[in-house]
């Protein structure tokens, strides 16, 4: 645990308050940050962490309160002012222009727009020098679109360092990294701190926070509920501060897999990359089997083929070779066929793909099944029937936010958690009268961006469905979720899926190794060691 360095505060927040309509995102938050200090901002989704740093960086203007850098007030509302004052930010969703080069992205905004000449050579040299100094090597000429997620993060950090940041804000930096890559990042961060930078590190991962930070600030419901040194804090203390109550997160009890035809079976599944020069396949000879009543998780860093696997299992994509059978049948690659076969699908992006935001709740509830005889006859919709079923869904799955307009609520207005409940309900009730649970559930990042209560709800639903006989395929980048729910875990790397082994045979080290592409044999050797 690093010792507290004594220094005058390089950053001071006083009474930051911010409202978004009825939502109080930040409530009178006051904080100090000393030079050379690492301050962790901890809190669950929706606690106000991202809002606070967005205010710091100038994306938002606080309703009241001040920010001071080295004792001088920071003009609010302009990233330019923050950048000039030495505040840099590594956003959770990288702010990089894919079609431009690394150097372009770093140089952007650093030269006067009125000056007609661009000093690229000097900039390139400086960038390479910075990269070597902090162990963040990237090729300045490389096009960002071709970089891996870890490399892109390096570019984001270099952007800030290039501009001489003295305070660096990192918003959930390890969300997209393997455990080993996170280690490398921490080493880099320690180097930066040794060079005099102060860091604000947002995370919801308690282990990391305890390891990397000097002090921890816990936000809950927009308020700063705890500010304590990392030394002497422990996970249960932090968890309780974060959530305000002890939430019992559902965990998978050991359950024997059922016999019978697999809910889903992939054999040598291969999907080639588009275009004439195929290159590395998007999915490369994947073998996977999910039995009824079992939960199989596919872990891995984003961008290794999980999205393609999900599309395949949702019926959006066809195989180039190999076979896919759902409940024993081979299905043509059409989403509707998969829906009719009883596959319950929860997509990764609930806003863009899960629901049609402008339509009413009942219309989204019936979006997958409106063509069936139960809901349409000779092309005419049975609106009342659909509305009634939607009402039943709302009640059974506790979808809130419908007080004013009921099933006519415009779906866009639901909160993330309620929207996910709607999608969950739509998927799980897909079986209709004959089937009580769907034979296969494909859940892709089902709890991304949800608060703890909603996460617990979704997990419980998945566990209940598995207990009732559904086969569940969970694709998740959240290792905590994977370990909490899965019977068997397989790791995806560069389009290849490792063998799915029982959850107890994995630990953080072995799974991290597999996520980074380490060999199966090595993983098997370390798996014997206790977690």
């Amino acid at each position, binding site marked *: 645990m690093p010792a507290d360095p004594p220094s005058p505060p390089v950053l001071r927040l006083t009474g930051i308050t911010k409202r978004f*309509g*009825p939502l109080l995102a930040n409530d009178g938050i006051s904080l100090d940050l000393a030079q050379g200090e690492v301050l962790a901002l901890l809190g669950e989704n929706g606690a106000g962490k991202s809002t606070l740093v967005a205010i710091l960086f*100038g*994306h*938002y*203007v606080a309703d009241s309160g001040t920010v001071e850098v080295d004792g001088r007030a920071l003009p*609010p*509302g*302009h990233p330019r002012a923050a950048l000039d004052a030495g505040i840099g930010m590594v956003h959770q969703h990288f702010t990089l222009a894919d079609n431009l080069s690394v150097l372009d992205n770093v140089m952007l905004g650093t030269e006067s727009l009125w000056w007609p000449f661009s000093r690229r050579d000097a900039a390139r040299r400086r960038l390479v020098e910075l990269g070597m100094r902090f162990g963040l090597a990237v090729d300045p000429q490389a096009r960002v679109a071709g970089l891996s997620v870890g490399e892109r993060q390096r570019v984001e950090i270099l952007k800030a360092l290039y501009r001489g940041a003295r305070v660096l804000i990192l918003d959930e930096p390890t969300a997209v990294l393997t455990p080993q890559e996170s280690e490398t990042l921490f080493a880099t961060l320690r180097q930066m701190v040794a060079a005099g930078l102060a860091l604000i590190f947002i995370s919801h991962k308690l282990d990391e926070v305890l390891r990397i930070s000097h002090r921890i600030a816990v936000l809950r419901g927009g308020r700063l509920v705890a500010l304590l040194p990392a030394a002497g804090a422990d996970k249960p203390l932090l968890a309780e501060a974060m959530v305000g109550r002890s939430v019992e997160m559902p965990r998978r009890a050991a359950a024997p897999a059922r016999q019978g035809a697999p809910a889903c079976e992939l054999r040598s599944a291969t999907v080639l990359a588009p275009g004439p020069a195929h290159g590395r396949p998007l999915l490369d000879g994947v073998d996977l089997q999910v039995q009824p009543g079992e939960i199989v998780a596919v872990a891995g860093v984003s961008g290794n083929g999980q999205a393609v696997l999900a599309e395949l299992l*949702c*019926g*959006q994509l066809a195989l180039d070779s190999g076979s896919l059978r759902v409940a024993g049948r081979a299905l043509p690659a*059409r*989403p*509707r066929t*998969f*829906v009719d076969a009883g596959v319950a*699908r929860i*997509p990764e992006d609930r806003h*863009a*793909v*899960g*629901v*049609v*935001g*402008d*339509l009413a709740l009942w*219309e989204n509830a019936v*979006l*997958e099944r*409106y*063509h069936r005889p139960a809901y*349409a006859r000779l*092309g*005419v*919709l049975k*609106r009342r029937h659909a509305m009634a079923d939607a009402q039943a869904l709302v009640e059974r799955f506790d979808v809130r936010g419908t007080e*004013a307009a009921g099933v006519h609520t415009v779906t866009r207005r639901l909160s993330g958690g309620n929207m996910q409940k709607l999608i969950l309900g739509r998927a799980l009730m897909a079986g209709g009268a004959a089937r009580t649970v769907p034979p296969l559930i494909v859940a892709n990042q089902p709890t991304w961006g949800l608060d703890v209560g909603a996460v617990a709800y979704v997990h419980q639903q998945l566990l209940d469905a598995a207990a009732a006989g559904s086969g569940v395929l969970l694709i998740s980048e959240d290792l905590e979720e994977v370990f909490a729910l899965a019977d068997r875990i397989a790791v995806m790397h560069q389009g290849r899926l490792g063998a799915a082994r029982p959850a107890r045979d994995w630990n953080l080290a072995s799974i991290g190794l597999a996520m980074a592409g380490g060999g199966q044999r090595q993983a098997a050797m370390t798996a014997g060691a206790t977690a």
Partner: protein
Amino acid sequence: MRLERRDTPSRSAALLAPVAAIAGTLGVASLLVAWAGAPVAQAYWLLLEGGFGSRFAITETLTRATPLILTGLAAAVAFRARLFNIGAEGQLYLGALAAVAVGGLHGGSGWAAPVWLLFPAMMAAAALAGALLLLGPALMKSRLGVDEVVTTLLLNFIVLLFVGAMLDGPMKDPAAMGWPQSVALQEPLQLDRLVERGRVHSGLPGALVAALLLWALLKFTTHGFEIRAVGANARAAAFAGMPVGWVTVKVALLSGALAGLAGAVEVAGRAGYVTLDMSPGYGYSGIVIAMLAALHPLGVVAAAVFVAGILVGADSMSRAVGVPTYIADVIVATALIAVLVATLFTQYRLRRGPRP
């Protein structure tokens, strides 16, 4: 100053929006009328009178509104599915040409078939012509990602030239003494007048029926559901299993057909033959009408009557006080922008301060 999304769209703003838009429009138009040296108040009075102030004016307005309802519906259904059909003008002309091809007095007497067969055939041909014309750009959009706005626009020019070539050649009216016009429709195929001493014809109730049918389609049928879902979020609709490509094709056929019918109705109801200037921009006005009506089929009827009244009134006003007739086009274009802006304020409000 910046825009902030409202939590619930303001009811009062939604009702006021069209009114504010019209007021803003008339304000701009007043400046133009004054510039032309005409007395503003009198000009407006003449406009209203010319459009709605007498039995004759109303029949003229309703006559003008008939094709506008149909092109308005064509734009409304296409825009609902985010298929920006700017080609209604060309589809109208091609539909008119197809109608004359089937029902015209070719070689003196035309097809010798009973009216109850020939009339629907004529209408079907017009609808088919318009539909197929839009199908090309629609497929280019869904298969190749080519922006349909530019392709449909360019097709308008191509179709107009094609119609010109037809009128100079195979479909020329031999008795027309050199004017480029087509052969006339057979007499029994022309639409009846609804009233004496007025030009409004039985195409109007047909257009109204079309509006009702479209409204019912969108609200009550699976096809309408698909159109609305695909228009609002095509990715989510595709994920849920809707056949997005097929829906786009259906919408294109429907929209093009409506515009083609507008052409047939104009030929059968007004002149009886096709000329190169038979449409003073009905296709483009249809887009404005659809936006004014917020893409609602029944609203299209009201908006079409309104726009028709402006166009007719401006004609008579300009003859009386010497304001150029282009004032009508200016009013219609300004109304479009005004309505867009006004509708925005039902969902957003202006806030002081540089950032949120």
